[in-house]
């Protein structure tokens, strides 16, 4: 385990939604360069956990530390310079080009009344290229398919370029090729550029392939730690209440329902 201080840490975290406690005593440290997968059944609280980690909702108890400082102490813009969040759903109520949307990711970096610089524009274009949407830069997002919109939303987060990237089911609506490509990209950002990635995932095989660490959100308790120890057929079968088998393949392990 790295000896550097964690970029994102939660201590004694308890989460609740109206009428229900989701979990308590959750504690884990996310370091730069790590790629975390949050795994759990529907309604286990993956989205709530991510929103809380992002500083967008108050935990029932406990603290989140972003670079050692409680996340609630950050001014929104200062927080957005260090931490970005891709929500499960984004809205496209109005026409906007893919490039405009990607440029939106630069918002925290640009002072008020200032226009986007050439460097911002380049970062936005690079982000679109990274998700394979550079050809659609001038297309109206409302004419794009669900998967293409999802990739544009991901480009917005890439353009924001924060140290900590939180993603709520980033592979929603994506075909299998883009699913792999997007996760490859995120894992690469963690490995090569020292970003910390935390994402909710449903595909266990892809989680096993790309995650270095995992959070298993069960109904009783939450396990967090190295992916190798947690992403096993035994633990995952118990988590989902569905028997799974691990099948070894040349690139890792696939999990299949029995």
């Amino acid at each position, binding site marked *: 385990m790295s000896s550097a201080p964690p970029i994102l840490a939660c201590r004694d975290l308890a989460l609740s939604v109206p009428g229900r406690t989701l979990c308590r005593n959750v504690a884990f440290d996310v370091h730069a360069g790590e790629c975390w997968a949050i795994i759990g059944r529907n309604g286990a609280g993956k989205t709530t956990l991510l*929103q809380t980690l*992002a500083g*967008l909702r108050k935990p029932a108890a406990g603290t989140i530390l972003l670079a050692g400082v409680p996340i609630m102490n950050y*001014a*929104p*813009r*200062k*927080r*957005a*310079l260090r*931490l*970005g*969040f*891709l*929500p499960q*759903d*984004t*809205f*496209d*109520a*109005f*026409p*906007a*080009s893919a490039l*405009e*949307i990607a440029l*939106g*990711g630069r*918002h*925290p970096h*640009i002072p*008020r*009344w200032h226009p986007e610089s050439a460097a911002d524009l380049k970062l936005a274009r690079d982000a679109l290229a990274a998700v394979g949407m550079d050809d659609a830069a*001038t*297309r*109206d997002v409302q004419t794009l398919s669900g998967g293409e919109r999802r990739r544009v*939303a991901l480009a*917005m987060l890439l353009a*924001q370029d924060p140290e900590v990237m939180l993603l709520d089911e980033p592979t929603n609506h994506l075909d299998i090729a883009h699913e792999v490509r997007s996760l490859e990209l995120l894992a690469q950002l963690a490995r090569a550029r020292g970003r910390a990635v935390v994402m909710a995932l449903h595909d266990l095989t892809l989680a096993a392939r790309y995650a270095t660490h995992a959070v298993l959100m069960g109904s009783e308790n939450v396990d967090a730690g190295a992916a190798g120890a947690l992403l096993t057929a035994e633990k995952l079968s118990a988590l989902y209440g569905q028997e799974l088998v691990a099948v070894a393949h040349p690139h890792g392990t696939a999990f299949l329902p029995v």
Partner: protein
Amino acid sequence: MQRFPHWIVIAALALVALAAVAFALTAGSVDIGVGAVARALLWPADDADGAVVRELRLPRAMAAFAVGALLALAGTIMQVLLRNPLADPYVLGLSGGAACGALTALLAGAVAMVTPAAFAGALVSTLLVFGLARGKGAWAPTRLLLTGVVVATGWGALIMLILTTAPEAQVRGMLFWLVGDLSGATRGGPGLLALAGVLVVALFFARDATLLARGDTTAASLGVPVRGTTLALHALAAFATAVAVTLAGSVGFVGLVVPHAVRLVIGNDQRWLMPAAAVAGGALLTLADTVARTLIAPAQLPVGVLTAIVGVPLFLWLLRRSDR
């Protein structure tokens, strides 16, 4: 999708606005040429035509421009906040609340209180709509819109109640608040001043507003203080509506149609949409008011009637167009 650079669209709209103002200054019961208008404005002399231009037509054109621009801005802001292109101060009951406040002040004989009462009415309407439509900690745009429509209907009923109980002599003057009429506009300065203020504040929040259109969570994760920004923008829309209603009564459809139409050309980047909608709204209402007062001269139509007659089919057409 961007067919023209943003600034070209704004420049073109500014030219249209200039033409609309020129039309407003030259047309009327006496036709005054462009040259004579320019002379009357630049070298004021003691002649009848000059007085007509300076004391009647100019203040009215300025008021019309300010009202149209304020309504278009209020509509732009509300559409982006509700993530719904059907939002507008008239539809959501802000205009109704403002008119109701103004009428109550008139009925009480407190003429000086008309503007504050109109603002209070618009603000009450905003708070009411948000209070009623709020649920599960989030403001669902659809519910908000429906609540707004119901609240607007409620204001309409209250206005009818005031009209039926008011003394006979006051009713005609009060009807003005219902239909939207600029014949009472004798000063253009206050409206334009309010417009300048509203536009600067709106532009201050323009980038945040663009992000809010993509969802509160997206905006918050990009560093927009969602709650404060949303509240400030709603108060701004309420203020813009109140000023517009005080100057011209409740003019409908400008706040709905103008942002919608301008967005088709310039996109939804609020830094461009806000000023473009303001200029287009100002130009449209100046034009509409001039037509309203010259169409069946010497009688004058209330401009609100004209904007509704033009606005309804135009809006239906835009709605069909944007479906494709």
